[in-house]
């Protein structure tokens, strides 16, 4: 209980209000429904609940006690201590959305710096203050494209190698939009190994958006310049979902001429935390700024001429425009954006390149070693970043069950999303995986299939 009331204070307060008891304050509530009996446990003290939470946390295994080669949209990267030290400051995490700028400059300047870093990282002109995650940021890109053409272009082309969960979220978000079609991935059944350039013939004058992923769900990297050119020739927009760590060394979406860059910000210093809270980043070209959804922080001055920051272009948002707003988004991921800002500042120009390079090198070393194991082969010849698909000699779930016995979380079983991809495992390698761990994985795979 965190209410500080003493009995004598309660009595004084009731007297000031002019009622006899607290229950007199609830007279508007229909009598027969008042004070239901709740089938809930009795209250626990802090000491008791922490013992319970310790027990529950310890009944999990995690990337702390297991070796992890699992990615598929959430990645085990190193998080410098200063990141969590900053986001655990009460001045940040117990503040509200900075609607009162005079007493929220800390949050506002941090978001402004976040916007700057995301713009630099993606090679785009501007960034918003965040979305919920990579999947919902992608869905917002689709909706922005729809509104950009005032609903007159009804086709969105989804690459089949976009994360399956992202494509599912896009379908959920757009089910209320009439005359709006999602094509390219055959309702999720298309082979994700298809070449993304096969999407080009689908682009026409009715296309609002082409949505691509980079590296894609299978880890592959393509130069999307020619798709962007084709899309722009038809007047369509292009959005690229990107892995922010990969952008430490790879061309950013801006270099390919993309109109929108979105992605999952979790790799930028956010804990895995069983899938959330994460961070959706959203960057675009300057000319599309008024179409963007979510919050924007802008620089201005105060009455004394001092530099200061404030939420701006709020006329796009739901609390002003109501049913005509660009999105219903209100609360977003402020604290996660702060965490990623601290992370990007700590790594800086050189550090992010180094992390990206370590991921790239270790993944390539692992891929070569696994490819040389009898029965295993790396399935694609396309360049990749830190994830790659391995064709295994037996079902992935069987292999993973045995890897787990050896203290290893194996890769993602692609058959879960793509029934055609039997025995295909998506392996992720990050800077956290030492050479010993990669050797351990290879030995284990060899033992499992030939033991």
């Amino acid at each position, binding site marked *: 209980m*965190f209410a*500080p009331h003493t009995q004598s204070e309660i009595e004084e307060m009731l007297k000031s*209000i002019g009622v006899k008891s607290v229950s007199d*304050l*609830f007279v*508007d*509530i229909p009598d027969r429904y008042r004070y239901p*009996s*709740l089938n*809930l446990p*009795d*209250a626990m003290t*802090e000491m008791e609940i922490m013992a319970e939470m310790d*027990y529950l*946390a*310890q009944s*999990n*295994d*995690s990337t702390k006690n297991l070796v992890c080669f699992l990615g598929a949209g*959430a990645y085990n990267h190193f998080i410098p201590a*200063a990141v969590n030290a*900053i986001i655990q*400051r009460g*001045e940040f*995490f117990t503040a509200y959305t900075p609607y*009162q700028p*005079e007493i929220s*400059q800390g949050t506002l*300047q941090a978001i*402004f710096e976040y916007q700057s870093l995301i713009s630099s990282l993606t*090679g785009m002109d*501007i960034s918003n203050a965040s979305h919920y995650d990579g999947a*919902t940021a992608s869905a917002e890109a689709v909706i922005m494209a729809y509104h950009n053409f005032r609903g007159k272009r009804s086709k969105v082309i989804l690459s089949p190698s976009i994360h399956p969960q992202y494509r599912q*979220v896009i379908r959920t*978000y757009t*089910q*209320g939009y009439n005359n709006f079609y999602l094509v390219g991935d055959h309702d999720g059944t298309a082979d994700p190994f298809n070449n993304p350039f096969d999407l080009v013939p689908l682009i026409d004058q009715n296309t609002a958006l082409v949505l691509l992923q980079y590296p894609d769900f299978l880890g592959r*990297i393509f130069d999307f310049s020619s798709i962007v050119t084709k899309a722009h020739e038809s007047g369509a927009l292009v959005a690229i979902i990107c892995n922010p760590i990969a952008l430490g*060394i790879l061309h950013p979406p801006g270099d390919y001429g993309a109109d929108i860059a979105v992605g999952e910000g979790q790799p930028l210093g956010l*804990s*895995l*935390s*069983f899938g*959330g*809270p994460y961070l959706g980043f959203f960057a675009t070209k300057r000319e599309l*700024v008024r179409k963007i959804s979510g919050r924007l922080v802008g620089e201005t001055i105060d009455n004394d001429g001092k530099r*200061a920051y404030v939420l*701006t272009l709020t006329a796009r948002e739901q609390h*002003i*425009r*109501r049913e005509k707003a660009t999105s219903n988004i*209100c*609360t977003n991921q402020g604290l996660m954006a*702060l965490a990623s800002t601290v992370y990007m*500042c700590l790594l800086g*120009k050189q*550090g992010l390149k180094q992390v990206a390079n370590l991921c790239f*090198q270790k993944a*390539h070393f692992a891929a070569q070693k696994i490819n040389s194991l009898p029965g295993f082969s790396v399935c694609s010849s396309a360049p990749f970043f830190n994830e790659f698909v391995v064709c295994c000699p037996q079902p992935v779930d069987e292999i993973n069950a045995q890897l787990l016995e050896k203290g290893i979380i194996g890769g993602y079983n692609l058959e879960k999303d793509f029934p055609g991809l039997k025995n295909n495992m998506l392996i992720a390698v990050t800077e956290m995986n030492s*050479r010993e761990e990669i050797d351990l994985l290879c030995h284990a795979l060899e033992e499992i299939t030939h033991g």
Partner: protein
Amino acid sequence: MVEPTIYELSSPGRQGVRLPECDVPTTELPAELVRNDLPFPELSEVDVVRHFTRLSHLNYAIDLGMYPLGSCTMKYNPRVNEEAARLPGFLHSHPLQPIETIQGNLEIMFLLQEWLKEISGFAGVSLQPAAGAQGELVGVLITRAYHNMRGDYKRNKIIIPDSAHGTNPATSSMSGFDVINVSTTSEGNVDIDALRLLCDETTAGIMLTNPNTLGLFEQNVLEVVDVVHKAGGLVYGDGANLNALLGIVRPGDLGFDIMHFNLHKTFSTPHGGGGPGCGPVGVANHLTAFLPGPIVCISEEGNNEIPPQFGFVMPEYSIGRIKSFYGHFGMMVRAFTYIAMHGKNGLPKVAEYAVLNANYLLSKIKHVYKLAYDRICMHEFVVQGCWENVPEIRALDIAKRLMDYNLHPPTNYFPLIVHEALMIEPTETESKQSLDMYADALLRIAEEAKSNPEILKSAPHHTPVRRLDEVKAARDLVLCCWQPDNF
């Protein structure tokens, strides 16, 4: 002192974290894939920690004092929640790990689903939505799916009271519905006669916030529910104001079909300077099959010796997935901790003290600040921040002047139906002393409004920055740090 930006603090060659050398043979990255330059600042760890610590000092926060933003439920965020959510077994678990390695996580999610059902009187809960607005989107998409499943395609209208949060109409139009407004009576209730006239075979449902944004419990709630149900529509409850009802009344019992929860309001998870939130959705029995998923189920019943095994299930007619993975798990751990610490007897106390605090603060100021609707309020109330004898003073001036007293202003200019609205929600975690201090400040400001209006018009005076030029921000539109020439 203006705090420099990270780009201004940058010094070429610095790096805040060192990384290990590469311990594997290297592969050449194809040159055509490599980006030219990464225009990031270069800072030491000390630079970074000091910069963000200095920035933190420019913020007001619950940890510093009362933060009575109406409809935002800025209650104290218990530290035990943070410690629980940061236990390594939770913090470092990957969302796609084998199911047998994450039974602790699933048990928490399962129990939280059960507890939220019990608290709200609903039959099913999905924890997946990321925030209140996303919970609303889920609720309205469920409404749509329900009518479509029944072949009832004519229902294209959602009725929304004029006192509603902006997210309600925004969500409805995002989901393909037309928005129809219903007015509020002079008692602060939905105009039931107007509602009757609006309801017909095209009504998909109503989005009702109860208590409403005036802080008043809807006195005709049973009638409203009945009118909408008789027309074939569903009743959606915006759970933003659930703090007033915890353990006092269950929306499901009142006939609501759908409601979202705001774990970051009612259940004490922090607001984080604008998120992350967490907006689970509860539904009545006839709608459980439409919930977004996956949701947690018991996959194998336990017995005296073996605990149950938890797994995931996708509801049969699910509207689909609304987010990656399962939602904001870290927020679920915090809310779980909070509910467990209150238990069945503690939760009603939360609502009672929240309502007591609001009524007490109101009793201290209502002789000076005009109350829009003079009734017993619930967890919040709305007064008018203006006086006829000092016409130049507006609610905004009062809000800004409160900052000079080291207090956070209330929500202002909302709800839209109250002229110069100040919407005040103290929450249950404020003591009588802090309420008295807030009331004193409001009364002194009312005096100042008469004796020295200029001090309000030019407020705040003692904050890190003064009133801002918001027009310049929108006109010049500087959304990124200026980068020195060497970038």
